């Protein structure tokens, strides 16, 4: 009985921790990264990765930064590729592990991928990594971003959705 109830309690605790971690909104550099920078030693590598890829906010921020820092310019908005390689498939030129993606962003790669390490804070790079991982469906389902606003996923729209032109003084107050 005690075994079962402690199992249940443990399960509940685990669920709660999962939820907390998933939902946390971190507005600045997480402790893990601060410690790493200050001690100038790398902790077990999975530590920073987990803090970002299990967090819906990080993935969502990564999605925003993907547009803001113009990653979309080469890889397209949904990561389908263009000038740069696509990010949605399983093929990785420089390795697809989180750490390798991180290094790719920080250091840049030959033939076009610029280095961002000197311009973008490390935690934002990790957020970008989290988003890139989500593109190929490698994140937990409950932290994956949903459909972004103002962008149609699925089949491309067959037409534009402009509103009918409204005469100048009809409808809204001029």
């Amino acid at each position, binding site marked *: 009985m005690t075994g079962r109830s402690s199992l249940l309690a443990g399960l509940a605790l685990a*669920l*709660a921790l999962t*939820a*907390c971690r*998933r*939902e*946390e*909104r971190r507005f600045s550099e997480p402790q893990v990264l601060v410690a790493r920078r200050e001690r100038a030693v790398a902790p077990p590598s999975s530590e920073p990765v987990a803090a970002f890829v299990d967090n*819906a*906010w990080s*993935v*969502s921020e990564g*999605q925003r930064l993907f547009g803001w820092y113009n990653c979309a310019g080469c890889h397209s908005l949904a990561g389908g590729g263009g000038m740069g390689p696509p990010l949605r498939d399983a093929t990785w030129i420089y390795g697809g592990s989180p750490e390798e993606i991180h290094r790719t962003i920080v250091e840049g790669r030959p033939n076009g991928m610029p280095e961002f390490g000197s311009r973008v804070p490390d935690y934002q790079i990790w957020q970008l990594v989290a988003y890139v991982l989500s593109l190929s469906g490698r994140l937990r*389902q*409950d*932290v994956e*971003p*949903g*459909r*972004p*606003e*103002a*962008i*149609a*996923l*699925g089949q491309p*729209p067959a037409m534009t*959705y402009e509103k009918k032109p409204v005469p100048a003084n*009809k*409808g*809204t*107050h001029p």
Partner: protein
Amino acid sequence: MTTAIDALPHDDSGSRTAELRAELAFTWRLARGLRGWFSETSHVVIARRMIVTAFVFFALGGVQALLMRIQLMRPDNHFMGPDRYDQLFTTHGSTMMFLFAVPVMQAMGVYLVPLMIGTRSVAFPRLNAYAYYTYCFGGLLLYVSLFTNTGPDTGWFAYVPLSSSQFAPGKRVDVWSQLITFTELSALSTAANLIVTILKLRAPGMALSRMPLFVWAQLVTSFMVVFAMPSVMLASMYLAMDRLVGTHFFNSAVGGDPLLWQHLFWFFGHPEVYIIFLPALGMVSSIVVTFSRRPIVGYLPMVLSLVTTAFLGFGLWVHHMFATGLPQIGQSFFTAASMMIAIPSGVQIFCWIATLARGKLVLKTPLWWVVGFVVIFVIGGLSGVMVASVPIDLQVHDTFFVVAHLHYVLIGGAVFPLLGGIHYWFPKFSGRLLSERLGRWSFAFTFIGFNLTFFPMHILGLHGMPRRIYTYRAATGFGSLNFLATLGAFVLGVGVLLVLVNVVSAAYGGQPAGDDPWQSDTLEWSVSSPPPPYVYACLPCVFGRYALWQPGPRAVVEDMDPRQRQVLVTSALDAAPDHVYMLPSHSMWPFLAALATFITIVVLLFTPWAVPLGGVLGAICLCGWFWPRPPHEPLLAEQP
């Protein structure tokens, strides 16, 4: 418990009555044990649980309000950050609307309506239990989420696109949209239950024109629920689909529109206010009549006012959207409707004041709460007329002025009458009297604290303080009035705490109340306090609007079979006896069905595959719920 004097066959001997009561007590006995606790379907028990649960949520919402007031006490306060604050004000609003106000009003209806109309139960006792458990699970979901940092944070109105997956990542808004599903399921079930109860189970002779005003208010409210709540259910379904499976209902890039959300939400959201507030008006009528010792002035205008309010209530949702820039002709229409809805409320206020003036007042605590209600509610109503005007609304919309207005209307218009109602009916619920002295103190604290908290907010709003901000700069000068408001909030908190102290101490050591401590007019005071599970030993017959004040002996329904859970079905308009209806016994299935709903909805937070899962679970529950169990009723002649 069974020694009370209630409506008895007037020519029967005592021994016959005792025998009858013993049989009824056996037939209607409550379920026992832990399993029994989950299978109980007695409306008295369920409604009591629901009232207690609703007040627990009220307390939680109140604590959230105090925390927010502490944060706003001074400019640039660091008591909490925006993330926490957003979760708190969203949960506060959702709790007060969905987990307190609507359920508590319905619960009062579920408890009192069968008693007032002279029947033994609600029409669908199992549905009633289901409604309670879904409501409970919904609240549980919200609060477990809040404590695991998954509290919704986009406001109780969850405007898209702020609540879309792009701007609200994670599961916070999904929790909110499924909370809606829970509370709507519960509210809709209860509304249907109350409507059928009121229309079909009234005591013989209680024609619609003889119904107590509280019952009228519950009837009208329930109809509003039936037509208003589907709107928010649809809206939250669209929102959940946009977030979960990527539909585009609100995505303006491919033909959707964020304003569609606002239309759907407010088409529910405004009637919601009246859904909360009409039952409260019913309580006020009950209290006023009893403590004035006379019939209400203008019964018919009172009823018509309720009905008019219900109709008009559906015609003014756009006044929440004046700032979105809809066409002006339409705006004028909604301004007119929003102002005209003040008329039925005004008529009722005048009728109550006239009744008080022509009555023989007994100034007990419940009546003080009604006095507080009139003062506060009139102020709230008048500021409501202000915000109905488009130009004024454009200034004060989404400012602290509106915060003040809505609290004047909802606390003044619903919580004060409700607390009055609790003071009034507590003797019936528990068999014990509340302390008059504590009652008056709690009223004084609540009344003063309330005005201290919310009146300054009118001024803050006019001077430029928007709503839903977690802090403000010192240079704005908002600090002093905010400090006053925070002070008031604590006074208000003390007032509510005193009510709690009063209730708890009375429940354990209050004076015995007897059946009818206030010499009231309605039937619930003719049964013992608290009422036995079968409520009436013999169902009463009704010959006037004020049943217990009618002179002469009381008539009852004779020869119902005490060995079966029987109620009498009467015709909808004039309550002529029609047939005898058998109620089901207690059952575990409502709880299991609610559990199945809970599981389905929690899984639905994560994957649409919950829908087929829900179908299977639902099918199992449906079979269990409706499958006949011995002893059978009369069977069809030719059986396989």
